[in-house]
């Protein structure tokens, strides 16, 4: 009995951290055909409702995929694309805001969320040829890649 209470206490103690981890920084909301996520070398087919984590690479072949981040920022990725989510911080209370996406190749749409509203300088979209400084609110990018 006592052991069980201990486990319970432990579970409660670690629950918030575990949950935050499980939640990721964005969710897959729209999917046409198939798209994939690469997490530390592991390639996995995406499904609607699946979380995306910081430093994940999202990849498409013939499909497209739409993601909504915790701050309401939306990114949708067209076919034959490869995009890395480099940084995401959304903690307005502690003034911690960051949004950095690297387009390796392909097509992408960006629609700004709360991070861009509170701190436009915290949002950057990198590509191999140039960086996009975003002052709102919706744009498209196409990158040839290697």
């Amino acid at each position, binding site marked *: 009995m006592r052991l069980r209470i201990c486990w319970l206490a432990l579970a409660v103690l670690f629950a918030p951290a575990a949950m935050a981890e499980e939640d990721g920084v964005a969710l897959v*909301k729209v999917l046409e055909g198939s798209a994939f996520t690469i997490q530390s070398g592991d390639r996995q087919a995406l499904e609607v409702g699946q979380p995306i984590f910081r430093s994940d690479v999202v990849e498409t072949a013939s499909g497209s995929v739409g993601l909504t981040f915790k701050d309401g920022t*939306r990114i949708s990725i*067209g*076919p034959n694309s490869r995009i890395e989510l480099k940084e995401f911080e959304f903690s*307005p209370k502690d003034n911690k805001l960051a949004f950095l996406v690297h387009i390796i190749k392909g097509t992408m*749409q960006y629609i700004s969320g709360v991070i861009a509203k509170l701190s436009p300088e915290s949002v950057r979209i990198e590509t191999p*040829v140039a*960086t996009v400084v975003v002052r709102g609110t*919706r744009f498209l990018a196409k990158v040839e890649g290697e």
Partner: protein
Amino acid sequence: MTMVFRTVQTIISSVACYGRIVLLPLLFLSACAGQGNVFVLLPDENGKVGSIEVVNDAGRQKIDQANQSIKVAGVTQAPEAPQTLDEAQINKVWSGAIQTTPRGPRTFILNFRSGTDQLTEESIRQLPGIFEEIKTYTVAEMSIVGHTDRVGRAEANAALALKRAESTRERLVEAGLELKRVEVSSHGENNPVIPTADNVAEPKNRRVEVTIR
């Protein structure tokens, strides 16, 4: 007749773009705008047009009009002067990305009686609308953020804002909220709708923002 001409034009320009047979480069320049590295500014769903700046070591270029685009030939070449694209050019390259745009977030603002976590009557009447809105989202998520005005100490307000957010969640759960992903947080007195001096009562700032995404 116009139709035939346009089709022929499309075929020729496709050949010019893809086959790199640039016969009349100036004439087909705009038709090739989707090739290479391109950035296009679009109006958002409310018709608002922001601005973007494309920057590399060779230069920078800013656009702030709907459908303006910037090409970048390479990392050592400066971003080119803006060109305006038409819908057909945009759809040809970006239809996949545009078709998978997730539904945009929607925020409801609920107000409170001064110094309490009690919703105003008017805000209570808004609750059913929140439930209706949730149904329109795929894998709906919700954030509940509490705010106060600047009457009282900042620390006390941070706690009150959190209490407001939590009591809103409880109220929604009692009313049948079953969402798996709900975040509750407090911005205290730091994120007002109407900025005021310290210790000024402002009913509009005493609120909880419920955002569905």
